[in-house]
């Protein structure tokens, strides 16, 4: 397959402050009516003197078309999922988000979250039924919340439930949690934020999974629970997962399942049969809501009936045919986010599930899994690429360019800058630490056609071939992207880093 002579838009677009022209205006807000002004007087008089703004904020001044043009150009210089074959960004499940769902989600744009329940029956119905009809069957869990507004927030939510559960049971000394190194970093970072000591299990170099013996050694009277991703970031499914949850339960702990990327196991295997007490799905991954340049997304947290009373308030319940917000939950962990979370995300996921049904969800899972096997057949033939650990991978695989790096000096960072010249987004490498050297993690979910996978593999193969024939070409990449190779080395230097235009101007002496 021939790779395309792609070229990204390159607008050399200035920072918006540089486009400012004194006096220009992009938007004129409504003014108070004369009768209003007559009654209350000048606005300044309504502010205590000490709190009046003394100097105008240094915002840019642009007309409306100029603001629009600037941000349109920035959007063009962004290789969004809908523009390209985004299967290289694994662990993220870059699937298609049906456009019709955007319009449906917009129908709640002007609903206020504190409206009387009777004026919100539509959105409450969707949120409740999505859990009760779909997620309950998909996961085997009993009750759901969408208050955590992202996957990591869902994991944090579960850490808070774990904390409160043991405290309520008179075992506050349970302050240790166990995770695995190929579980997503949130499985370590969010329990740590909740005050838990984190014990991390490392994999057997052959299987890629920690041994069950290692888990047995890690648990004890201080074990609060386990936070584990399955399949792990490597795409390897832990076949002993039910034995693991049994071990943790026997030690008195709870089990939280990271199902952020459950795409290849929908309708195939569930949290309940694996013995988990709670889980979270990422609705912006497995359940099709768009990623939004990194949010707003949403977790869907599911728990067994034993833990239902710990869910954050309010819980959406159904009573006498009406949907209600239940705040009267004495054991609740309280709040992890204001209001009910990102319900527009839940709405999109509901619409997606309704369009899929049981067969569609199962078909999505199978297509994702088969796509990954097919991709593997092609990627393993590319010179310089290897696959650590043994066995089949479910939805994704963590590959290595170690050999390429050794033989050509071209590593994954270089490949990632070059592959974009062929109209393909930079690949996801790995979370840290890089146990797999020079890693990359493609995830060809059900959105991608056989031809898409063939193209993507051809792009990767082309770059790897270039690494052998002309390594400097790859190292100097990108050549056809929206800008050139970043050469700055001051990201960790307080004298040179700049996280705002005003800091940049000061540090570069441009004031």
């Amino acid at each position, binding site marked *: 397959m021939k790779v395309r002579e792609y070229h990204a838009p390159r607008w050399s677009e200035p920072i918006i402050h540089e486009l400012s022209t004194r006096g220009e205006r992009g938007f004129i807000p409504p003014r108070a009516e004369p009768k209003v002004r007559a009654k209350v007087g000048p606005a300044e008089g309504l502010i205590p003197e000490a709190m009046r703004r003394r100097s105008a904020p240094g915002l840019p001044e642009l007309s409306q078309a100029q603001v629009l043009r600037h941000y349109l150009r920035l959007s063009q210089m962004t290789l969004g999922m809908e523009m390209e074959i985004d299967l290289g960004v694994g662990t993220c499940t870059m699937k298609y*988000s049906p456009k019709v769902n955007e319009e449906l989600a917009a129908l709640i744009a002007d609903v206020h979250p504190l409206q009387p329940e009777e004026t919100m029956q539509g959105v409450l119905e969707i949120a409740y039924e999505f859990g009760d009809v779909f997620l309950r069957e998909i996961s085997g869990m009993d009750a759901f919340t969408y208050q955590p507004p992202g996957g990591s927030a869902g994991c944090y939510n579960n850490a808070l439930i774990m904390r409160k559960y043991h405290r309520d049971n008179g075992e506050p000394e349970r302050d240790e949690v166990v995770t695995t190194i190929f579980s997503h970093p949130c499985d370590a970072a969010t329990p740590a934020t*909740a005050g838990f000591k984190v014990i991390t299990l490392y994999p057997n170099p052959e299987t890629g999974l920690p041994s069950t013996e290692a888990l047995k050694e890690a648990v004890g009277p201080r074990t609060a629970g386990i936070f584990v991703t399955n399949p792990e970031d490597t795409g390897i499914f832990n076949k002993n997962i039910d034995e693991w949850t049994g071990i943790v339960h026997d030690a008195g702990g709870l089990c939280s399942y990271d199902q952020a990327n459950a795409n290849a196991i929908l309708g195939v295997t569930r949290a309940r049969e694996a013995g988990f007490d709670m889980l979270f799905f990422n609705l912006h991954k497995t359940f099709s809501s768009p990623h939004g340049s990194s949010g*707003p997304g949403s977790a869907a947290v599911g728990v067994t009936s034993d833990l239902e009373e710990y869910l954050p308030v309010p819980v959406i319940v159904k009573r006498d045919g009406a949907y209600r917000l239940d705040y009267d939950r004495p054991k609740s962990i*309280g709040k992890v986010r204001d209001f009910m979370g990102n319900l527009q995300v839940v709405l999109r996921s509901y619409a997606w599930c309704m369009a899929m*049904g049981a067969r569609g969800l199962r078909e999505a899972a199978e297509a994702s899994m088969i796509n990954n096997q097919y991709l593997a057949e092609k990627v393993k033939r590319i010179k310089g690429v290897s696959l650590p650990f043994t066995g089949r991978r479910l939805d994704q695989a963590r590959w290595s360019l170690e050999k390429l790096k050794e033989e050509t000096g071209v590593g994954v960072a270089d490949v990632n800058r070059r592959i974009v010249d062929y109209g393909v987004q930079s690949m996801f490498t790995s979370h840290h630490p890089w146990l797999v050297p020079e890693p990359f993690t493609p995830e060809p979910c059900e959105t991608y056609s056989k031809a898409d996978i063939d193209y993507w593999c051809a792009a990767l193969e082309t770059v790897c071939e270039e690494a052998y024939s002309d390594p400097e070409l790859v190292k100097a990449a990108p050549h056809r*992207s929206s800008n050139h190779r970043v050469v700055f080395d001051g990201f960790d230097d307080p004298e040179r880093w700049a996280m705002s235009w005003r800091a940049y101007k000061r540090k570069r002496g441009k004031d």
Partner: protein
Amino acid sequence: MAECDMEKESFVHPYIPNSVPEIKREMLRVIGAGGAHELYMEMIPERLLLGRPMDLPEPILSELDLRRHVESILSRNKSTDEYVSYLGAGCWRHYVPKVCEEIAGRSEFLTAYAGGSHSDLGRYQANFEFQSLICELLGMEVSGIPTYDWGSAAGNAVRMAVRLTGRREVLVPQNVSPARLSIIRNFCDSASQTSRIEVRLVDYDPATGMVDLTDLESKLSEDTAAVYFENPNYLGVIEAEGAAVSDAAHDCGAECVCGVDPISLGVLAAPADYGVDIACGEAQPLGIHMHAGGGSCGFIASRDEERYVAEYPLRLVCVADTAVEGEYGFGQALYERTSYIARENAKDWVGTTTALWGIAAAVYMSLLGPQGMRELGETILQKSHYAAARLDELEGARVPFKTFFKEFPVAFDRPVDEVNEALLGHGIIGGKDEALLGHGIIGGKDLSAEYPELGDAALYCVTEVHSLGVMDGLAAALREVLA
């Protein structure tokens, strides 16, 4: 087995190109496998396989039918477009300029995620511009990609202060949002007995609604890591003595953390100007619809000092140079602090938050500019004070605090739920806006459980969207309800 049966029947779905049987067969041939079930059996033990089709509703395969199905359910909602709403309390109805919607709906921004800084140059630059613009409003120099909401931002900010000072107590006045306080308490609590952060509440002055400085000073000590307060606070009151709060915190070696509503900052002082060390708040008013609460977008900002930067949990987009002179590139500052690298040793955690809303807010701040932000602030001040004055004149209603921005409690002489129920069923009478006749009014948020000391009070929110006609209509309706 159910799995085998399902494989036999074809089911071509528009979202799944490789559901076409011939293609699937060809791919399985390349793989060297007979079917999906066989492959799953290789990876997942049989005892963990569901082994039956899921029991779910039949799919709605036609887009038209799907649209009708969802629209029919959602028709049971009433939006603030149909009813006149006076709700705020952490989520506010402001006008959203069309250009904000246009950019936030752009395919590229909507569907990007974790691409590289060259291929996603525009995303990085838009993130950087959000940081730059919010810093201009706040008088700060560092911010990051926004987090989930104001409460999460406040929780992170308080924990930054704890790490900065090595102290384990934060002081929070009772005039902050109870929901945010609950989020902050979760952030401060700990499974470890020794690393718990104590949240001590400080009184507010019942006469003014402002922080009680005497009580604050009596509780400040060498154990205080931070004072967290809000301006305008949850009750809408402008904290006129903000500088005294930060001075008091600093005198004890504590950090001053303040949560703000950025839409006030065209007319209210920048937090940096009254001594705030770490500012946080909610960007939803800046060009983002409410989305039933899904519009939340929290931010954190500070001075550009290494000690602060090192404690951020957020991704901090940093402007950089490229191989071509004068060209901008971007990267992330001190990335190793984040949970993506440091796992349990990270500064809290970072994840998928609200970047798209940050981009919408950047567009908003660029559109309004300094003059638009000032004029909008003036409009909100005047309108909210007009509405408050009209309600204060009513028999049976009283507005206790006089120095506020956008929101104010109204104390009634009867229970708020009764008042609100009557308003909801009430057609606007006496309003000039004929189009609104027969539509209900959603009254302010009931404060009587959260703030019993205010009596039967509701928190009213008035912004630029409220016309003179609807405000007069509210006064007329309340006169009738309270009579």
